[in-house]
């Protein structure tokens, strides 16, 4: 498993993880009211703060994603993204446990109406996808500590 700690694995993980976050953030930044609606539907957040979260979170995703892809402040941006992923998984899991079928809103809101079953299924897929993305943190966070051959330290 040493390839997981290699430089190429680290770069690939950063590109996939950072790229996903940039893509996801772009859709939400383009339509904050739609994202606010999604957050509201999760019924986990105080109603007064829904709008502020819908405005702020996508930009955290965007900047952390850009930093990760560019290799600037790698560790910090990776940890921020990890924290966001944990929050997303928790939010989806709680609603799944409640039996509440919500649109994930992960990559912007869906344009086509879905049935409850489709939504519940999509939530499970989203949780699995987020867990996979969380796994990508390993090569990013592991490489710096153990690979002393790394040419450029974290700036």
């Amino acid at each position, binding site marked *: 498993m040493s390839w997981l700690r290699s430089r190429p694995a680290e770069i690939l993980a950063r590109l996939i993880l950072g790229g996903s976050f940039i893509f996801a953030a772009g859709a939400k*930044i*383009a*339509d*904050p*009211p*739609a994202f*606010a*609606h999604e957050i509201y539907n999760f019924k986990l957040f105080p*109603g*007064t*703060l*829904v*709008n*502020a979260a*819908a*405005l*702020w979170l*996508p*930009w*955290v995703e*965007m*900047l*952390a994603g850009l*930093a990760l892809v560019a290799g600037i*402040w790698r*560790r*910090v*941006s990776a*940890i*921020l993204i990890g924290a966001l992923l944990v929050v997303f998984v928790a939010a989806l899991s709680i609603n799944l446990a409640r039996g509440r*079928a919500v649109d994930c809103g992960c990559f912007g809101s869906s344009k086509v*109406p879905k049935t409850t079953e489709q939504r519940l299924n999509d939530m499970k897929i989203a949780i699995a996808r987020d867990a996979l993305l969380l796994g990508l943190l390993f090569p990013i966070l592991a490489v710096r500590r153990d690979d002393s051959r790394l040419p450029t330290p974290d700036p």
Partner: protein
Amino acid sequence: MLKSARRTAVSRAAALLGAALVCAAISNALAGPERRLEWIRKEGALPGSPPAAGAPGAPTNPAWVEISGEEAARRLESGAIFFDARRSNEYRGGHIAGARSLSVWEAGLDEGIQKFFAEGHPPAENIVVYCNGGECEDSHTLAQKLFLAGFDHVAVYRDGFPDWKRRGLPVHQGDQP
């Protein structure tokens, strides 16, 4: 050494979160009315549970009632005022003929209600609100808002616009009611 590394990490994280806040403020200030959000969502806008008609303990004077498609059509004919609570782009794509747009997720909702209030409608004005039916709660949110503004004859068209279209009732497209 480790302490200073941790301090650097914390200050970098704070810088990133702060920069995100600045970007959000700028992009929201530059956004058009359909994409803009008020930073603090007014709690009064949140819907309560729709009162179950006839249920034991149900309030005798509920904030709003839920009505069917037939009843909505009947109320349109008798001159009720209809409000479309969906997003502006959905409204433009097609709405109940005569309905006004009042999206609950776009900036200017409270101004819209105040404007309507200022038109001098009586509290007993017959009002019908709708969104997309099913799990859509936007019509309830708007009903609650209108109720709090002083209108006590507000009805929520439960099955909303998809049902209206299915029934082949009159639909208009564009920005105007």
